[in-house]
């Protein structure tokens, strides 16, 4: 039985000087290697939850422990994000003046990986995502699906233990979206990485091992 990689207890996140409750006493446990989908309407708190898990934002109350890190501590979690988390956004957010390979190398720049290994590692991942012919191209020359695959490569390059994907198919057509989901599923299986995917589409959510429904900052259903 796998151990919990994420443990959240009574998590509260407030905005607008406490007038808006984004997360309301939320409790959640996720095991290492699980594929979790989070669904819910707009403004339900699913993206806020994802930001808390990736230490992009900090909760006001409660406890949140991810991959052994206490994310309620008042400190910089850059190292945690670099080592444990791979982010995939709805918009690819690639840097336009860098080549595909260079974009993938960005998370490795401040690690102790040599330049040569950096290039090798980035190109290997791009090859596994069928992007070997695009390595030296700039993002503007790629299709939407290709750009998102580059973003996936960037998220995977530091071998994170958790991938946080915020509506990764939201900006893609259904056919391209399916390709991306297929890629994510394969990675999840091959790497035994914990995959947490935020979506508002039920058919995407159903691909996960477990679906968590969030409403008004609380988990209303987990199946």
């Amino acid at each position, binding site marked *: 039985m796998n151990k919990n990689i994420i443990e959240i207890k009574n998590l509260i996140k407030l905005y607008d000087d406490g007038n808006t409750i984004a997360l309301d006493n939320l409790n959640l446990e996720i095991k290492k290697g699980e594929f979790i989908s989070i669904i819910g309407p707009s403004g339900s708190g699913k993206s806020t939850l994802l930001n808390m898990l990736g230490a992009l934002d900090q909760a006001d109350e409660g406890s949140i422990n991810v991959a052994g890190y206490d994310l309620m501590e008042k400190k910089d979690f850059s190292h945690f994000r670099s080592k444990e988390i791979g982010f995939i956004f709805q918009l690819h957010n690639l840097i336009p003046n860098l080549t595909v390979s260079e974009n993938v190398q960005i998370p490795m720049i*401040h690690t102790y990986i040599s330049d040569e290994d950096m290039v090798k590692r980035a190109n290997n991942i791009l090859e596994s995502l069928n992007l070997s012919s695009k390595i030296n191209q700039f993002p503007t020359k790629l299709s939407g699906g290709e750009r998102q695959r580059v973003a996936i490569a960037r998220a995977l390059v530091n071998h994170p233990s958790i991938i946080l994907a915020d509506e990764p198919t939201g900006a893609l057509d259904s056919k391209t979206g399916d390709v991306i989901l297929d890629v994510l599923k394969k990675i999840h299986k091959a790497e035994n990485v914990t995959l947490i995917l935020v979506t508002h589409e039920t058919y995407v959510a159903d691909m996960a091992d477990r679906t968590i429904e969030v409403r008004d900052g609380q988990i209303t259903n987990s199946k």
Partner: protein
Amino acid sequence: MKYRNLILKNIFRNKARSSLAMIGIAIGIATILGLGLLTDGLSTSTEQALTAGAADFSVVSASSNGQGGGPGGFGGSQQLINETTVNKIAQISGVESVAGILRSSISDDSTNSTNNTDQQPSSSNSGQPSMTMPATVLGMDSKNLEMYDVKVTNGSTYSSANEVIIGKTAAESQNKTIGDTVTISNETFKIVGIYETGETMQDNGIIMSLSTLQNLTNNTGKVSSVLVKTADSSIANKTADTIESTYSDLSTSTSLSGIDRMNSGMDIIKSAVWGISILAIFIGGIIVVITMIKSVSERTREIGVLKAVGWTKKWVMVMIIGESLILALIASIVGILVGVGVVEILSLSNMLQFIQPTYSLTLFIKALGIGLLMGVIGGLYPAYRASRLAPTEALRYE
């Protein structure tokens, strides 16, 4: 990919904006360097002109009333110094050259000459009107004229006992010119040259050889003052002190008004140059700040991504400052080249006839340093802003 490669790529991603910023900084640096080259050149040229051969100070007898020595000293009772003392002063450490001067006062009225120097209308034999004689007759060796700031502007200097040169003011007021004669103490002298010192009072006199005036005034072996030029102007005061402490009967006067005025004038020019330079730095700095703020603003989402993938605040800050610094470095090099080029063109086209630009490593280092400082200071605020961006807000930025 190396961190520095990312910085370099970021600088040139918006070529138009970066070029504009570089032009702004380059103009600032070119201004600073160009003005620096010219003011240093002006300072050197002026100093050379003023101190080329001039004495640093004069020595007079301590019991004189203090007016017998340097420029501006006229008349008054004076105690004379033995010429042997002149030779002794020449032996003192730091003294490069010395010149003994004998000064003789004469009355303005040609018919009532003083007991020292009698004078007669010089051109009585040539039919010229009766003249009012110059107030001062100086005796000094012709090779020492430069030490007294005397320039023969017309004719030549005296080479025999019966030749003299006359000051420009005296020549004009007495209607004398080269070839005319003057009579002093019943001795007739031929005017062979007209001199100028730049001071009207000094130019209202006659200069002849030292031995001639000594004989004329029965002061053989005596001088009124000794002009002293040191090997280095910076030790003039120290050398003067040494002379005063060695010879209690002598006193020195180091007030060389020309150099003082030059220094004062140069201080004003340098202040103005600094004022312009500070303005150029300010404008350059503002351009860097605006450029970098715009650059950071355009890349807000990217900075959010960098933070999401694990970049620390420090790395983001160093990246932005690095971009600003390299931008300023390139612009500074361009500015230096432009500054030197413009000054050289002006120099070659004879628009700077009296100023020879002075190139010094210090000036180039200063220009480069100011450029880099502009880059660091200009990049500091945008870098701070970028580093403080909350990742979640940055990622939502449209």
